[in-house]
């Protein structure tokens, strides 16, 4: 059994427009040391899935299903238990490094806080671990940075501090929500290299939430593609990119203006936009935008079926031609 076992997670929000069902039957079994990418457009439910697991939904949100961390149920668990999990056994890196650090605390102070709180280390021990971790994420001159405030650091530096902070307690799972979206491409490459290094140095499992397929390809072993709250395809990264089974995954891949495309041809964009969560089409939610749509698509919701070893897709078609 994996380190994080999530089955049939559903997330709903009560709003003025009615109940929004934003995550539907999400299941994921995360193994030790594995890196899983969760890909989808804004509004596909990829972030809310993990916010729900960590008990971070807004007040009008409700999660059902089961999330087990090392066999222990954490979904809707009491706050005392969640406080021991968050930042300790599950680390989280958020998208915006500028607004995720406390501006009034020195970098070192906010890094050590969690360690002292969760693991009862002395300040000196925590400091030693913090310096070690800052070096792990390749912050030059770590001792000086330790005593600086976040505003003295550049965006890439702050994101490194965020990663270091999330790693302080040596978590079993690291959830990285769009960790490189706010960064320049050169700095993004550096951050991805650090995360790649983590995979080989520690047995922390990494979940990478992103809309950038390039980021996923570089680092993830396994990929889940989400559309309108559901996983529509999942499998080993190589299969997702080279033996694509879902038309949405194919559309996403073709939308990327990668270097081997001929720029004189238009990009094969997916027409239209994702549906609003309170007005989902019947049957397959992707059918109104799908180039392979048939009568069968509107009738019943396609379920995930086996397409290869560990590779599943939810589409009525057997294969893409």
């Amino acid at each position, binding site marked *: 059994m994996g380190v994080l076992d999530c089955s049939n997670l559903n997330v709903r929000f009560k709003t003025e427009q009615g109940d929004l069902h934003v995550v539907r039957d999400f299941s994921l079994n995360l193994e030790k040391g594995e890196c899983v990418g969760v890909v989808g457009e804004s509004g596909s439910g990829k972030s809310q899935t993990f916010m729900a697991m960590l008990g971070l939904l807004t007040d009008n949100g409700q999660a059902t299903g089961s999330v087990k961390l090392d066999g222990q149920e954490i979904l809707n668990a009491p706050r005392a238990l969640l406080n021991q999990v968050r930042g300790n056994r599950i680390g989280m890196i958020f998208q915006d490094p500028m607004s995720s650090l406390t501006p009034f605390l020195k970098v070192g102070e906010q890094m050590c806080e969690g360690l002292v709180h969760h693991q009862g280390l002395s300040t000196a021990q925590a400091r030693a671990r913090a310096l070690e971790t800052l070096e792990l994420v390749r912050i030059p001159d770590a001792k000086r940075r330790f005593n600086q405030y976040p505003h003295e650091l550049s965006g890439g530096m702050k994101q490194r501090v965020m990663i270091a902070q999330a790693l302080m307690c040596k978590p079993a799972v690291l959830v990285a929500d769009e960790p490189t979206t706010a960064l*320049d*491409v050169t700095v993004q*490459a550096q951050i991805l290299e650090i995360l790649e290094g983590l995979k080989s140095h520690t047995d922390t499992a990494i979940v990478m939430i992103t*809309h950038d397929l390039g980021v996923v390809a*570089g*680092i993830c072993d396994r990929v889940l593609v989400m559309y309108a709250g559901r996983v529509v395809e999942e499998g080993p*990264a190589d299969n997702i990119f080279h033996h694509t089974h879902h038309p949405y995954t194919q559309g996403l891949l073709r939308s*990327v*203006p990668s270097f081997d495309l001929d720029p004189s041809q238009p990009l094969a*964009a997916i027409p239209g936009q994702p549906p609003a969560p309170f007005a989902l089409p019947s049957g397959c939610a992707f059918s109104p935008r799908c180039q392979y749509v048939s009568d069968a698509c509107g009738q019943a919701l396609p379920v995930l079926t086996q397409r290869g070893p560990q590779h599943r897709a939810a589409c009525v078609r057997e294969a893409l031609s």
Partner: protein
Amino acid sequence: MSAELLDIADLRVTFPVRTGGILIPDYTPLMAVNGVSLTLGAGETLGIVGESGCGKSTLARAVLQLVKSDQGRVVWMGRDLVTLSPQEMDAARDQLQVVFQDPLSSHNPRMTVGRIIGEPLTVFKPDLSEADVDVAVKKIMSDVGLSELYFTRYPHELSGGQCQRVSIARALIAQPKLLVCDEPVSALDVSTQAQIVNLIKKVQADYGLAVIFISHDLSVVRYVCQRIAVMYLGRVVEVGTRDALFHNPQHPYTRALIASVPQPDPRAKRNRLKQLISGELPSPLNPPSGCAFHKRCPKASPHCIKTLPVLEGDTLTQAVACFHPGDQAVPQQ
């Protein structure tokens, strides 16, 4: 060259940055754009790439006279825009239009889509009747793929991609000759990004526009632009045609930028790591001596630390500002 539509020569933009205390104020000049010379022909697409803070947006704003330059010329169809009076400049703006990065905040939230798109016409052609403006707006809306249903909607009712279509429609309605796109797709999801990239390419061809396309995303720039300029700390370090730049990049920074773009193919992932650069853009308040890139450059020699390389070559085909371009080994000293 006088045949060019736009001729930017030795353009420099500095911002005074307060570095002193409250009692003893002191200002240090920040050279956002430092001696940039570029040309643009009619119907040509020029890409400008670089990391945040390299001055690419400031360059575009200086071309449009949205920030003051303190040196250099921006010659637009034979007239130096820098020397125009504000009134003359306003009259010339119908030919120079712009699309900004943030799709939502670049629209007035209290105006309908129809009015937003029509506003440039009411400014530049005040004698047009309201009905004529509406006809023109509807025509341009269909050109950019916006349904007429949106005519009476407000910006908050639109998605990011639709907002960006509105921005493009608003820019095109005055029938400009130059369209400046400042990171037009950075805030969009990948599938919407592809739609907008296709749209920009389509209107560029349909309207015969010259385009300055600013982006930090090299793969998008490669898709849209015929010629690309790479900026680093306020200067152009390499400029050339798309093929020259991508098949035969000369500047180590260009090479690093290209190598940094994550490609959506797990099999291709790790053969390019050796080209990556470390560190981040230095502070433009305190730029390094000589070649500004030398602190991050794998090929930096003592010469690079002392002397500033100038752009050499034909900017229409390929020009580079580097002492050790291409695969050339660094001489041992």
